[in-house]
Protein backbone atom coordinates (compact mmCIF):
# COMPACT_ATOMS: atom_id res chain seq x y z
CA UNK A 1 0.00 0.00 0.00
CA UNK A 2 1.22 3.48 -0.90
CA UNK A 3 0.51 6.15 1.70
CA UNK A 4 0.99 9.82 0.89
CA UNK A 5 0.47 12.67 3.36
CA UNK A 6 1.24 16.38 3.41
CA UNK A 7 2.46 16.51 -0.17
CA UNK A 8 2.87 20.12 -1.21
CA UNK A 9 4.78 21.39 -4.19
CA UNK A 10 5.18 24.65 -6.05
CA UNK A 11 7.14 25.38 -9.16
CA UNK A 12 8.74 28.74 -8.48
CA UNK A 13 5.69 30.74 -7.32
CA UNK A 14 3.10 28.56 -9.04
CA UNK A 15 1.43 26.12 -6.62
CA UNK A 16 1.02 22.64 -8.11
CA UNK A 17 0.00 20.47 -5.15
CA UNK A 18 -1.35 21.62 -1.81
CA UNK A 19 -1.24 19.26 1.13
CA UNK A 20 -2.23 16.27 -0.97
CA UNK A 21 -2.93 12.98 0.83
CA UNK A 22 -4.12 9.61 -0.44
CA UNK A 23 -3.69 5.86 -0.09
CA UNK A 24 -3.30 3.35 -2.90
CA UNK A 25 -4.34 -0.18 -1.95
CA UNK A 26 -2.65 -3.26 -3.38
CA UNK A 27 -4.30 -4.71 -6.47
CA UNK A 28 -5.87 -1.45 -7.58
CA UNK A 29 -5.75 0.46 -10.83
CA UNK A 30 -6.18 4.18 -10.29
CA UNK A 31 -6.60 6.63 -13.10
CA UNK A 32 -4.90 10.00 -12.78
CA UNK A 33 -6.70 12.60 -14.80
CA UNK A 34 -6.23 16.32 -15.37
CA UNK A 35 -5.68 18.74 -18.23
CA UNK A 36 -2.11 19.24 -19.51
CA UNK A 37 0.11 21.29 -17.25
CA UNK A 38 -1.94 20.67 -14.12
CA UNK A 39 0.67 18.54 -12.37
CA UNK A 40 0.04 14.85 -13.16
CA UNK A 41 3.63 14.13 -14.15
CA UNK A 42 4.88 16.35 -11.34
CA UNK A 43 2.92 14.23 -8.86
CA UNK A 44 4.41 11.01 -10.26
CA UNK A 45 7.90 12.52 -10.18
CA UNK A 46 7.43 13.59 -6.57
CA UNK A 47 6.35 10.09 -5.59
CA UNK A 48 9.62 8.75 -7.09
CA UNK A 49 11.84 11.41 -5.57
CA UNK A 50 12.72 12.93 -8.91
CA UNK A 51 11.63 16.26 -7.49
CA UNK A 52 12.58 17.35 -3.98
CA UNK A 53 10.04 17.28 -1.20
CA UNK A 54 11.33 16.88 2.31
CA UNK A 55 8.11 17.42 4.25
CA UNK A 56 5.71 14.87 2.80
CA UNK A 57 5.21 11.44 4.29
CA UNK A 58 5.49 8.87 1.54
CA UNK A 59 5.50 5.20 2.45
CA UNK A 60 5.25 2.11 0.32
CA UNK A 61 4.25 -1.01 2.25
CA UNK A 62 5.65 0.58 5.39
CA UNK A 63 8.94 1.58 3.77
CA UNK A 64 9.56 5.30 4.10
CA UNK A 65 10.74 7.01 0.95
CA UNK A 66 12.85 9.52 2.85
CA UNK A 67 14.47 7.00 5.15
CA UNK A 68 14.96 3.94 2.93
CA UNK A 69 15.00 5.26 -0.57
CA UNK A 70 16.57 2.26 -2.31
CA UNK A 71 14.18 -0.22 -0.64
CA UNK A 72 11.30 2.11 -1.54
CA UNK A 73 12.37 2.35 -5.19
CA UNK A 74 12.79 -1.43 -5.37
CA UNK A 75 9.00 -1.66 -4.97
CA UNK A 76 8.05 0.73 -7.74
CA UNK A 77 8.67 1.41 -11.38
CA UNK A 78 8.21 4.66 -13.27
CA UNK A 79 9.54 5.74 -16.60
CA UNK A 80 8.05 8.99 -17.74
CA UNK A 81 8.06 8.40 -21.47
CA UNK A 82 9.88 6.62 -24.25
CA UNK A 83 12.26 9.56 -24.70
CA UNK A 84 13.95 8.34 -21.55
CA UNK A 85 14.98 5.10 -23.22
CA UNK A 86 18.52 4.78 -24.52
CA UNK A 87 18.37 5.35 -28.26
CA UNK A 88 21.46 3.27 -29.06
CA UNK A 89 20.49 0.29 -26.93
CA UNK A 90 18.11 -2.47 -27.91
CA UNK A 91 14.84 -3.42 -26.26
CA UNK A 92 16.64 -6.53 -25.02
CA UNK A 93 19.35 -4.41 -23.34
CA UNK A 94 16.69 -2.41 -21.50
CA UNK A 95 14.74 -5.43 -20.32
CA UNK A 96 17.85 -7.27 -19.14
CA UNK A 97 19.01 -4.19 -17.23
CA UNK A 98 15.62 -3.76 -15.51
CA UNK A 99 15.49 -7.46 -14.62
CA UNK A 100 18.93 -7.28 -13.02
CA UNK A 101 18.48 -3.99 -11.18
CA UNK A 102 15.01 -4.85 -9.81
CA UNK A 103 16.20 -8.41 -9.12
CA UNK A 104 13.11 -9.70 -10.85
CA UNK A 105 12.27 -13.28 -11.74
CA UNK A 106 9.95 -12.41 -14.60
CA UNK A 107 10.74 -14.28 -17.82
CA UNK A 108 11.77 -11.73 -20.44
CA UNK A 109 11.02 -13.96 -23.42
CA UNK A 110 7.54 -14.70 -22.12
CA UNK A 111 6.84 -10.99 -21.67
CA UNK A 112 8.14 -10.21 -25.14
CA UNK A 113 5.88 -12.89 -26.61
CA UNK A 114 2.89 -11.66 -24.64
CA UNK A 115 3.35 -8.15 -26.02
CA UNK A 116 4.12 -9.38 -29.55
CA UNK A 117 7.56 -7.78 -29.58
CA UNK A 118 9.59 -10.64 -31.03
CA UNK A 119 10.28 -8.85 -34.32
CA UNK A 120 11.92 -5.83 -32.72
CA UNK A 121 13.20 -7.27 -29.45
CA UNK A 122 16.79 -6.94 -30.65
CA UNK A 123 16.37 -3.62 -32.45
CA UNK A 124 17.75 -0.34 -31.18
CA UNK A 125 15.25 2.05 -29.64
CA UNK A 126 16.09 4.75 -32.19
CA UNK A 127 14.80 2.48 -34.96
CA UNK A 128 11.39 1.88 -33.36
CA UNK A 129 8.06 3.64 -33.93
CA UNK A 130 6.30 5.40 -31.04
CA UNK A 131 3.93 2.47 -30.63
CA UNK A 132 6.83 0.00 -30.45
CA UNK A 133 8.56 2.16 -27.87
CA UNK A 134 5.35 2.21 -25.79
CA UNK A 135 5.35 -1.59 -25.92
CA UNK A 136 9.00 -1.63 -24.84
CA UNK A 137 8.12 0.66 -21.94
CA UNK A 138 5.27 -1.55 -20.82
CA UNK A 139 7.53 -4.59 -21.09
CA UNK A 140 9.97 -2.87 -18.73
CA UNK A 141 7.17 -2.34 -16.21
CA UNK A 142 6.22 -6.00 -16.40
CA UNK A 143 9.80 -7.23 -16.18
CA UNK A 144 10.56 -4.99 -13.18
CA UNK A 145 7.85 -6.93 -11.28
CA UNK A 146 7.56 -3.87 -9.03
CA UNK A 147 4.64 -3.86 -6.64
CA UNK A 148 3.62 -0.31 -7.53
CA UNK A 149 3.74 1.15 -11.03
CA UNK A 150 3.29 4.77 -12.05
CA UNK A 151 2.46 4.85 -15.74
CA UNK A 152 2.35 8.16 -17.57
CA UNK A 153 0.26 8.38 -20.75
CA UNK A 154 0.83 4.74 -21.72
CA UNK A 155 -1.69 4.76 -24.56
CA UNK A 156 -0.13 7.59 -26.59
CA UNK A 157 0.66 6.49 -30.13
CA UNK A 158 -1.14 3.15 -29.83
CA UNK A 159 -3.61 1.67 -32.29
CA UNK A 160 -6.92 0.26 -30.98
CA UNK A 161 -5.54 -3.30 -30.97
CA UNK A 162 -2.60 -2.26 -28.83
CA UNK A 163 -4.87 -0.26 -26.53
CA UNK A 164 -6.92 -3.42 -25.95
CA UNK A 165 -3.72 -5.36 -25.27
CA UNK A 166 -2.47 -2.74 -22.81
CA UNK A 167 -5.76 -2.71 -20.96
CA UNK A 168 -5.61 -6.49 -20.76
CA UNK A 169 -2.08 -6.30 -19.34
CA UNK A 170 -3.20 -3.74 -16.75
CA UNK A 171 -5.95 -6.13 -15.68
CA UNK A 172 -3.46 -9.00 -15.42
CA UNK A 173 -1.08 -6.92 -13.33
CA UNK A 174 -3.97 -5.91 -11.07
CA UNK A 175 -4.91 -9.55 -10.70
CA UNK A 176 -1.37 -10.24 -9.52
CA UNK A 177 -1.81 -7.70 -6.74
CA UNK A 178 0.09 -4.88 -8.39
CA UNK A 179 -0.92 -1.27 -7.82
CA UNK A 180 -1.10 0.88 -10.92
CA UNK A 181 -1.41 4.66 -10.97
CA UNK A 182 -2.10 5.42 -14.61
CA UNK A 183 -2.09 8.95 -15.93
CA UNK A 184 -4.14 9.27 -19.09
CA UNK A 185 -6.25 11.54 -21.25
CA UNK A 186 -8.15 8.64 -22.83
CA UNK A 187 -11.22 8.82 -20.63
CA UNK A 188 -12.95 5.81 -22.18
CA UNK A 189 -9.95 3.66 -21.36
CA UNK A 190 -9.71 5.15 -17.87
CA UNK A 191 -13.31 4.18 -17.39
CA UNK A 192 -12.65 0.61 -18.47
CA UNK A 193 -9.53 -0.16 -16.40
CA UNK A 194 -9.70 1.99 -13.26
CA UNK A 195 -11.12 1.10 -9.87
CA UNK A 196 -11.13 4.76 -9.02
CA UNK A 197 -10.01 7.97 -10.64
CA UNK A 198 -7.94 10.81 -9.18
CA UNK A 199 -9.04 14.09 -10.68
CA UNK A 200 -6.25 16.58 -10.03
CA UNK A 201 -7.77 20.00 -9.72
CA UNK A 202 -6.88 23.19 -7.86
CA UNK A 203 -3.77 21.52 -6.35
CA UNK A 204 -5.93 18.82 -4.75
CA UNK A 205 -6.90 15.28 -5.61
CA UNK A 206 -10.58 14.40 -5.93
CA UNK A 207 -10.93 10.66 -5.57
CA UNK A 208 -13.90 9.33 -7.56
CA UNK A 209 -14.81 5.66 -7.31
CA UNK A 210 -15.46 4.12 -10.70
CA UNK A 211 -19.04 2.89 -10.59
CA UNK A 212 -19.41 2.68 -14.33
CA UNK A 213 -20.27 6.33 -14.78
CA UNK A 214 -19.37 8.20 -17.98
CA UNK A 215 -15.83 9.35 -17.27
CA UNK A 216 -15.71 11.75 -20.19
CA UNK A 217 -18.83 13.45 -18.90
CA UNK A 218 -17.28 13.62 -15.47
CA UNK A 219 -14.10 15.07 -16.94
CA UNK A 220 -16.11 17.69 -18.82
CA UNK A 221 -18.07 18.51 -15.72
CA UNK A 222 -14.93 18.77 -13.58
CA UNK A 223 -12.65 20.70 -15.88
CA UNK A 224 -14.31 22.00 -19.01
CA UNK A 225 -17.64 23.41 -17.81
CA UNK A 226 -15.95 25.34 -15.05
CA UNK A 227 -13.42 26.71 -17.49
CA UNK A 228 -16.30 27.62 -19.80
CA UNK A 229 -18.13 29.42 -16.99
CA UNK A 230 -14.99 31.27 -16.12
Amino acid at each position, binding site marked *: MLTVKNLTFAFHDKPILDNVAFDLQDGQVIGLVAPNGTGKTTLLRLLC*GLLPDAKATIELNGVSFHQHRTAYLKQLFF*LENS*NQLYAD*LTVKDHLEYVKK*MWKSKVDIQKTVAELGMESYFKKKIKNLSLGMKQHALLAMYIVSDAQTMFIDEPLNGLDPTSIQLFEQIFAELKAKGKTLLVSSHQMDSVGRVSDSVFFLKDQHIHDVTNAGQDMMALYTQTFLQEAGHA
Partner: protein
Amino acid sequence: MHEQIAFDLKKNWRATTNLVILIAFTLLLLITYFSARSTADQSDNDNYGAYVNADTKIQNELSKLQEIKNPDAATVKKLQKRMKQHEYLKAIVLAHTDLENVFTTNMTDARLNTEKAVLAYERYTLREVKAGRTKGLIVIALPGKKTDKTLLGRQKDVAYYEYLVKHKLVEVPATKKDAPANNYIAYAFLYNVSPLLLLAVFAVQLGQLFTIEKRRGTINFLNIVPSGKLRLLSARMVSFLVLTIPLFLVAGGIAYAAAAKSFEVGSWDYPIVYSADGRTVSIMNIGQFLVMFVLLLLAVAVFIMMVSALVSLYSGNLAVNIVASLAVILLGAPQVMAHVPDALARFLPTAYFQANSVILHETDWTIPGIGFGVVVLLAWSLVLYAVCTAILRRRELI
Protein backbone atom coordinates in the same frame (compact mmCIF):
# COMPACT_ATOMS: atom_id res chain seq x y z
CA MET B 1 27.77 -2.83 -9.23
CA HIS B 2 29.08 -4.87 -12.16
CA GLU B 3 25.58 -4.86 -13.76
CA GLN B 4 25.64 -1.08 -13.78
CA ILE B 5 29.20 -1.02 -15.16
CA ALA B 6 28.24 -3.46 -17.91
CA PHE B 7 25.19 -1.34 -18.77
CA ASP B 8 27.23 1.88 -18.80
CA LEU B 9 29.85 0.31 -21.06
CA LYS B 10 27.13 -0.96 -23.37
CA LYS B 11 25.70 2.58 -23.54
CA ASN B 12 29.00 4.27 -24.18
CA TRP B 13 31.43 2.03 -26.00
CA ARG B 14 29.96 2.73 -29.43
CA ALA B 15 29.55 6.47 -28.88
CA THR B 16 30.95 8.66 -31.65
CA THR B 17 32.87 10.63 -29.04
CA ASN B 18 35.16 7.64 -28.51
CA LEU B 19 36.22 7.83 -32.13
CA VAL B 20 36.75 11.59 -31.85
CA ILE B 21 38.84 11.11 -28.71
CA LEU B 22 40.90 8.37 -30.38
CA ILE B 23 41.53 10.63 -33.38
CA ALA B 24 42.43 13.56 -31.13
CA PHE B 25 44.97 11.51 -29.15
CA THR B 26 46.39 9.99 -32.33
CA LEU B 27 46.74 13.33 -34.12
CA LEU B 28 48.50 14.86 -31.13
CA LEU B 29 50.98 11.99 -31.07
CA LEU B 30 51.48 11.99 -34.84
CA ILE B 31 52.24 15.70 -35.30
CA THR B 32 56.00 15.08 -35.51
CA TYR B 33 55.41 12.06 -37.74
CA PHE B 34 53.48 14.10 -40.31
CA SER B 35 56.14 16.78 -40.11
CA ALA B 36 58.84 14.16 -40.75
CA ARG B 37 56.92 12.83 -43.75
CA SER B 38 56.64 16.27 -45.32
CA THR B 39 60.08 17.69 -44.57
CA ALA B 40 63.52 16.11 -44.39
CA ASP B 41 65.08 15.57 -40.99
CA GLN B 42 67.69 18.22 -40.30
CA SER B 43 68.90 17.04 -36.92
CA ASP B 44 72.26 15.77 -38.23
CA ASN B 45 72.87 19.08 -39.97
CA ASP B 46 71.69 20.99 -36.91
CA ASN B 47 74.07 19.06 -34.67
CA TYR B 48 76.89 19.56 -37.14
CA GLY B 49 76.10 23.27 -37.16
CA ALA B 50 76.25 23.32 -33.35
CA TYR B 51 79.72 21.67 -33.32
CA VAL B 52 81.00 24.03 -36.03
CA ASN B 53 79.56 27.06 -34.26
CA ALA B 54 81.27 26.13 -31.03
CA ASP B 55 84.53 25.58 -32.89
CA THR B 56 84.17 28.83 -34.85
CA LYS B 57 83.75 30.80 -31.62
CA ILE B 58 86.94 29.26 -30.29
CA GLN B 59 88.81 29.82 -33.53
CA ASN B 60 87.80 33.48 -33.54
CA GLU B 61 89.14 33.85 -30.03
CA LEU B 62 92.26 31.98 -31.04
CA SER B 63 92.88 34.34 -33.94
CA LYS B 64 92.55 37.35 -31.66
CA LEU B 65 94.90 35.84 -29.10
CA GLN B 66 97.44 34.87 -31.77
CA GLU B 67 97.52 38.46 -33.05
CA ILE B 68 98.81 39.66 -29.68
CA LYS B 69 102.52 40.37 -29.95
CA ASN B 70 104.66 39.45 -26.96
CA PRO B 71 101.78 37.77 -25.04
CA ASP B 72 102.04 37.54 -21.28
CA ALA B 73 101.82 34.27 -19.32
CA ALA B 74 98.07 34.59 -18.81
CA THR B 75 97.47 35.10 -22.51
CA VAL B 76 99.65 32.12 -23.36
CA LYS B 77 97.72 30.00 -20.90
CA LYS B 78 94.45 31.17 -22.41
CA LEU B 79 95.77 30.44 -25.87
CA GLN B 80 96.72 26.92 -24.84
CA LYS B 81 93.31 26.38 -23.35
CA ARG B 82 91.55 27.52 -26.52
CA MET B 83 93.84 25.33 -28.61
CA LYS B 84 92.88 22.35 -26.51
CA GLN B 85 89.18 23.09 -26.89
CA HIS B 86 89.69 23.55 -30.61
CA GLU B 87 91.38 20.14 -30.85
CA TYR B 88 88.44 18.47 -29.13
CA LEU B 89 85.89 20.20 -31.33
CA LYS B 90 87.89 19.57 -34.48
CA ALA B 91 87.83 15.87 -33.64
CA ILE B 92 84.04 16.03 -33.30
CA VAL B 93 83.60 17.89 -36.58
CA LEU B 94 85.89 15.48 -38.39
CA ALA B 95 84.13 12.44 -36.96
CA HIS B 96 80.79 13.93 -37.92
CA THR B 97 82.02 14.66 -41.44
CA ASP B 98 82.24 10.90 -41.97
CA LEU B 99 78.46 10.80 -41.92
CA GLU B 100 78.45 12.81 -45.13
CA ASN B 101 81.29 10.84 -46.68
CA VAL B 102 80.16 8.57 -49.53
CA PHE B 103 82.96 6.11 -48.67
CA THR B 104 81.67 5.58 -45.14
CA THR B 105 80.29 2.04 -45.12
CA ASN B 106 79.20 1.72 -41.50
CA MET B 107 77.12 4.72 -40.48
CA THR B 108 76.56 3.37 -36.97
CA ASP B 109 80.29 3.22 -36.36
CA ALA B 110 80.64 6.72 -37.74
CA ARG B 111 77.95 7.99 -35.37
CA LEU B 112 79.52 6.16 -32.42
CA ASN B 113 82.87 7.75 -33.27
CA THR B 114 81.22 11.19 -33.20
CA GLU B 115 79.73 10.33 -29.80
CA LYS B 116 83.14 9.29 -28.46
CA ALA B 117 84.59 12.59 -29.65
CA VAL B 118 81.72 14.51 -28.05
CA LEU B 119 82.18 12.52 -24.83
CA ALA B 120 85.85 13.47 -24.75
CA TYR B 121 84.93 17.15 -25.02
CA GLU B 122 82.17 16.88 -22.44
CA ARG B 123 84.58 15.22 -20.02
CA TYR B 124 86.98 18.09 -20.65
CA THR B 125 84.27 20.67 -19.90
CA LEU B 126 83.37 18.77 -16.73
CA ARG B 127 87.00 18.84 -15.56
CA GLU B 128 87.16 22.56 -16.27
CA VAL B 129 83.96 23.30 -14.37
CA LYS B 130 85.09 21.13 -11.45
CA ALA B 131 88.34 23.11 -11.37
CA GLY B 132 86.37 26.36 -11.42
CA ARG B 133 87.69 27.35 -14.85
CA THR B 134 84.40 28.30 -16.41
CA LYS B 135 85.39 31.62 -17.94
CA GLY B 136 85.40 31.35 -21.70
CA LEU B 137 84.33 27.72 -21.59
CA ILE B 138 82.33 26.90 -24.70
CA VAL B 139 79.50 24.41 -24.26
CA ILE B 140 78.03 22.83 -27.37
CA ALA B 141 74.51 24.21 -27.82
CA LEU B 142 72.58 21.41 -29.49
CA PRO B 143 69.16 22.42 -30.86
CA GLY B 144 66.22 21.47 -28.64
CA LYS B 145 68.47 21.06 -25.63
CA LYS B 146 69.08 23.49 -22.79
CA THR B 147 72.67 24.68 -22.58
CA ASP B 148 73.74 24.15 -19.00
CA LYS B 149 77.19 25.31 -17.93
CA THR B 150 76.72 24.28 -14.29
CA LEU B 151 78.53 21.36 -12.73
CA LEU B 152 75.29 19.37 -12.78
CA GLY B 153 74.75 20.21 -16.44
CA ARG B 154 78.25 18.98 -17.31
CA GLN B 155 77.74 15.83 -15.25
CA LYS B 156 74.49 15.14 -17.06
CA ASP B 157 76.06 15.50 -20.50
CA VAL B 158 78.99 13.29 -19.57
CA ALA B 159 76.68 10.65 -18.09
CA TYR B 160 74.53 10.75 -21.22
CA TYR B 161 77.37 10.25 -23.69
CA GLU B 162 79.10 7.69 -21.45
CA TYR B 163 75.88 5.67 -21.46
CA LEU B 164 75.51 5.94 -25.23
CA VAL B 165 79.11 4.91 -25.86
CA LYS B 166 79.02 2.11 -23.30
CA HIS B 167 75.80 0.65 -24.72
CA LYS B 168 76.77 1.43 -28.32
CA LEU B 169 73.61 3.44 -28.84
CA VAL B 170 73.37 6.00 -31.60
CA GLU B 171 72.41 9.45 -30.37
CA VAL B 172 68.85 10.44 -31.27
CA PRO B 173 68.57 14.22 -30.89
CA ALA B 174 65.44 15.68 -29.35
CA THR B 175 64.74 17.47 -32.62
CA LYS B 176 65.02 14.35 -34.77
CA LYS B 177 61.81 14.04 -36.75
CA ASP B 178 62.35 10.52 -38.04
CA ALA B 179 63.39 9.14 -34.65
CA PRO B 180 63.12 5.38 -34.11
CA ALA B 181 59.69 4.38 -32.77
CA ASN B 182 60.82 3.94 -29.16
CA ASN B 183 62.40 7.39 -29.10
CA TYR B 184 59.57 8.85 -31.16
CA ILE B 185 56.89 7.92 -28.67
CA ALA B 186 59.01 8.91 -25.66
CA TYR B 187 59.99 12.25 -27.24
CA ALA B 188 56.34 12.92 -28.07
CA PHE B 189 55.59 12.88 -24.35
CA LEU B 190 58.90 14.45 -23.35
CA TYR B 191 59.16 17.36 -25.78
CA ASN B 192 56.48 17.52 -28.44
CA VAL B 193 53.05 17.15 -26.81
CA SER B 194 52.20 19.01 -23.61
CA PRO B 195 50.63 16.75 -20.97
CA LEU B 196 48.10 19.54 -20.45
CA LEU B 197 46.89 19.03 -24.02
CA LEU B 198 46.48 15.31 -23.40
CA LEU B 199 44.55 16.11 -20.22
CA ALA B 200 42.33 18.48 -22.19
CA VAL B 201 41.33 15.56 -24.43
CA PHE B 202 40.53 13.53 -21.31
CA ALA B 203 38.41 16.48 -20.11
CA VAL B 204 36.32 16.41 -23.29
CA GLN B 205 35.65 12.70 -22.89
CA LEU B 206 34.78 13.19 -19.23
CA GLY B 207 32.41 16.05 -20.02
CA GLN B 208 30.61 13.88 -22.54
CA LEU B 209 30.37 10.84 -20.24
CA PHE B 210 29.27 12.72 -17.15
CA THR B 211 26.64 14.95 -18.75
CA ILE B 212 25.10 12.84 -21.50
CA GLU B 213 22.37 11.34 -19.29
CA LYS B 214 21.21 14.76 -18.14
CA ARG B 215 21.34 16.17 -21.67
CA ARG B 216 19.34 13.29 -23.16
CA GLY B 217 16.86 13.07 -20.31
CA THR B 218 17.69 9.47 -19.43
CA ILE B 219 18.89 10.58 -16.01
CA ASN B 220 15.37 10.19 -14.59
CA PHE B 221 15.46 6.51 -15.42
CA LEU B 222 18.76 6.11 -13.58
CA ASN B 223 17.40 8.03 -10.62
CA ILE B 224 14.57 5.57 -10.06
CA VAL B 225 16.86 2.55 -10.26
CA PRO B 226 16.81 0.86 -6.83
CA SER B 227 20.52 1.27 -6.28
CA GLY B 228 22.65 3.73 -4.33
CA LYS B 229 23.37 6.74 -6.50
CA LEU B 230 27.03 6.66 -5.53
CA ARG B 231 27.19 3.26 -7.18
CA LEU B 232 25.81 4.73 -10.37
CA LEU B 233 28.36 7.54 -10.30
CA SER B 234 31.16 5.10 -9.50
CA ALA B 235 30.09 2.84 -12.36
CA ARG B 236 30.35 5.83 -14.68
CA MET B 237 33.86 6.49 -13.41
CA VAL B 238 34.82 2.89 -14.11
CA SER B 239 33.32 3.25 -17.60
CA PHE B 240 35.52 6.27 -18.23
CA LEU B 241 38.63 4.42 -17.16
CA VAL B 242 37.74 1.25 -19.06
CA LEU B 243 36.94 3.18 -22.24
CA THR B 244 39.44 6.00 -22.27
CA ILE B 245 42.63 4.34 -21.07
CA PRO B 246 42.54 1.85 -23.98
CA LEU B 247 41.79 4.74 -26.37
CA PHE B 248 44.87 6.56 -25.13
CA LEU B 249 47.00 3.42 -25.33
CA VAL B 250 45.66 2.57 -28.80
CA ALA B 251 46.51 6.09 -30.00
CA GLY B 252 50.03 5.60 -28.59
CA GLY B 253 50.17 2.22 -30.34
CA ILE B 254 49.12 3.75 -33.67
CA ALA B 255 51.77 6.48 -33.39
CA TYR B 256 54.36 3.87 -32.40
CA ALA B 257 53.44 1.56 -35.28
CA ALA B 258 53.55 4.44 -37.78
CA ALA B 259 57.01 5.47 -36.58
CA ALA B 260 58.26 1.86 -36.51
CA LYS B 261 57.02 1.24 -40.05
CA SER B 262 58.42 4.45 -41.51
CA PHE B 263 61.61 4.78 -39.49
CA GLU B 264 63.10 2.19 -37.13
CA VAL B 265 62.15 0.52 -33.86
CA GLY B 266 65.10 1.67 -31.76
CA SER B 267 66.00 0.61 -28.26
CA TRP B 268 64.05 0.84 -25.00
CA ASP B 269 67.44 1.25 -23.31
CA TYR B 270 67.97 4.73 -24.70
CA PRO B 271 68.96 6.97 -21.79
CA ILE B 272 67.24 9.98 -20.30
CA VAL B 273 69.45 11.83 -17.86
CA TYR B 274 68.02 13.67 -14.88
CA SER B 275 68.81 14.72 -11.35
CA ALA B 276 66.34 13.99 -8.60
CA ASP B 277 68.14 16.00 -5.92
CA GLY B 278 69.83 18.69 -8.00
CA ARG B 279 73.25 17.32 -7.10
CA THR B 280 73.67 13.79 -8.39
CA VAL B 281 72.93 12.51 -11.86
CA SER B 282 70.66 9.56 -12.54
CA ILE B 283 69.72 7.77 -15.71
CA MET B 284 66.46 6.14 -16.68
CA ASN B 285 65.77 4.53 -20.00
CA ILE B 286 62.91 5.57 -22.24
CA GLY B 287 61.02 2.38 -21.38
CA GLN B 288 61.02 3.34 -17.70
CA PHE B 289 60.11 6.92 -18.58
CA LEU B 290 57.10 5.79 -20.62
CA VAL B 291 55.79 3.55 -17.84
CA MET B 292 56.13 6.34 -15.28
CA PHE B 293 54.63 8.91 -17.64
CA VAL B 294 51.56 6.80 -18.39
CA LEU B 295 51.04 5.98 -14.70
CA LEU B 296 51.39 9.58 -13.58
CA LEU B 297 49.19 10.88 -16.40
CA LEU B 298 46.50 8.35 -15.50
CA ALA B 299 46.68 9.39 -11.85
CA VAL B 300 46.14 12.98 -13.01
CA ALA B 301 43.28 11.79 -15.26
CA VAL B 302 41.66 10.13 -12.23
CA PHE B 303 41.82 13.43 -10.38
CA ILE B 304 40.31 15.34 -13.34
CA MET B 305 37.64 12.61 -13.51
CA MET B 306 36.65 13.41 -9.92
CA VAL B 307 36.45 17.11 -10.78
CA SER B 308 34.21 16.33 -13.75
CA ALA B 309 32.04 13.96 -11.67
CA LEU B 310 31.59 16.57 -8.96
CA VAL B 311 30.66 19.29 -11.47
CA SER B 312 28.20 16.91 -13.15
CA LEU B 313 26.23 16.66 -9.90
CA TYR B 314 25.39 20.35 -10.23
CA SER B 315 25.26 20.89 -13.98
CA GLY B 316 24.37 18.71 -16.92
CA ASN B 317 25.76 21.26 -19.33
CA LEU B 318 28.57 19.85 -21.46
CA ALA B 319 30.34 23.19 -21.90
CA VAL B 320 30.24 23.94 -18.17
CA ASN B 321 31.73 20.54 -17.36
CA ILE B 322 34.52 20.80 -19.91
CA VAL B 323 35.38 24.40 -19.03
CA ALA B 324 35.51 23.52 -15.32
CA SER B 325 37.92 20.65 -16.00
CA LEU B 326 40.01 22.79 -18.34
CA ALA B 327 40.21 25.53 -15.72
CA VAL B 328 41.57 23.02 -13.22
CA ILE B 329 44.01 21.68 -15.82
CA LEU B 330 45.28 25.19 -16.54
CA LEU B 331 46.06 25.62 -12.85
CA GLY B 332 48.82 23.08 -13.49
CA ALA B 333 50.55 25.32 -16.03
CA PRO B 334 54.07 26.32 -14.93
CA GLN B 335 53.14 30.00 -15.22
CA VAL B 336 50.42 29.49 -12.59
CA MET B 337 52.35 27.09 -10.37
CA ALA B 338 55.26 29.56 -10.26
CA HIS B 339 53.13 31.73 -7.95
CA VAL B 340 52.53 28.93 -5.44
CA PRO B 341 54.92 28.79 -2.44
CA ASP B 342 57.34 25.89 -2.82
CA ALA B 343 56.45 24.35 0.55
CA LEU B 344 52.79 24.17 -0.50
CA ALA B 345 53.17 23.18 -4.15
CA ARG B 346 54.14 19.56 -3.51
CA PHE B 347 50.83 18.94 -1.75
CA LEU B 348 48.73 20.28 -4.62
CA PRO B 349 47.49 17.94 -7.34
CA THR B 350 48.23 20.60 -9.96
CA ALA B 351 51.95 20.29 -9.19
CA TYR B 352 51.97 16.95 -11.00
CA PHE B 353 50.04 17.82 -14.17
CA GLN B 354 53.25 18.47 -16.17
CA ALA B 355 54.07 14.77 -15.97
CA ASN B 356 57.17 14.94 -18.19
CA SER B 357 58.83 17.71 -16.15
CA VAL B 358 57.80 16.03 -12.90
CA ILE B 359 59.40 12.72 -13.85
CA LEU B 360 62.64 14.45 -14.81
CA HIS B 361 62.49 16.70 -11.72
CA GLU B 362 62.62 19.74 -13.96
CA THR B 363 59.79 21.68 -12.34
CA ASP B 364 60.40 25.04 -10.69
CA TRP B 365 58.86 23.64 -7.52
CA THR B 366 60.29 20.80 -5.47
CA ILE B 367 58.91 17.32 -6.16
CA PRO B 368 59.68 14.70 -3.48
CA GLY B 369 59.14 11.83 -5.93
CA ILE B 370 56.83 10.26 -8.47
CA GLY B 371 55.31 7.94 -5.85
CA PHE B 372 54.61 10.95 -3.63
CA GLY B 373 52.94 12.66 -6.58
CA VAL B 374 50.70 9.67 -7.24
CA VAL B 375 49.76 9.55 -3.54
CA VAL B 376 48.93 13.29 -3.54
CA LEU B 377 46.81 12.94 -6.69
CA LEU B 378 44.94 9.91 -5.37
CA ALA B 379 44.46 11.54 -1.96
CA TRP B 380 42.88 14.60 -3.59
CA SER B 381 40.79 12.31 -5.76
CA LEU B 382 39.57 10.57 -2.62
CA VAL B 383 38.67 13.93 -1.08
CA LEU B 384 36.58 14.84 -4.14
CA TYR B 385 35.03 11.35 -4.13
CA ALA B 386 34.10 11.89 -0.47
CA VAL B 387 32.46 15.21 -1.40
CA CYS B 388 30.48 13.44 -4.15
CA THR B 389 29.49 10.78 -1.59
CA ALA B 390 28.27 13.39 0.87
CA ILE B 391 26.23 15.20 -1.81
CA LEU B 392 24.63 11.99 -3.08
CA ARG B 393 23.86 10.74 0.43
CA ARG B 394 22.09 14.00 1.13
CA ARG B 395 20.01 14.33 -2.01
CA GLU B 396 19.95 10.78 -3.44
CA LEU B 397 19.80 12.08 -6.98
CA ILE B 398 22.62 11.76 -9.45
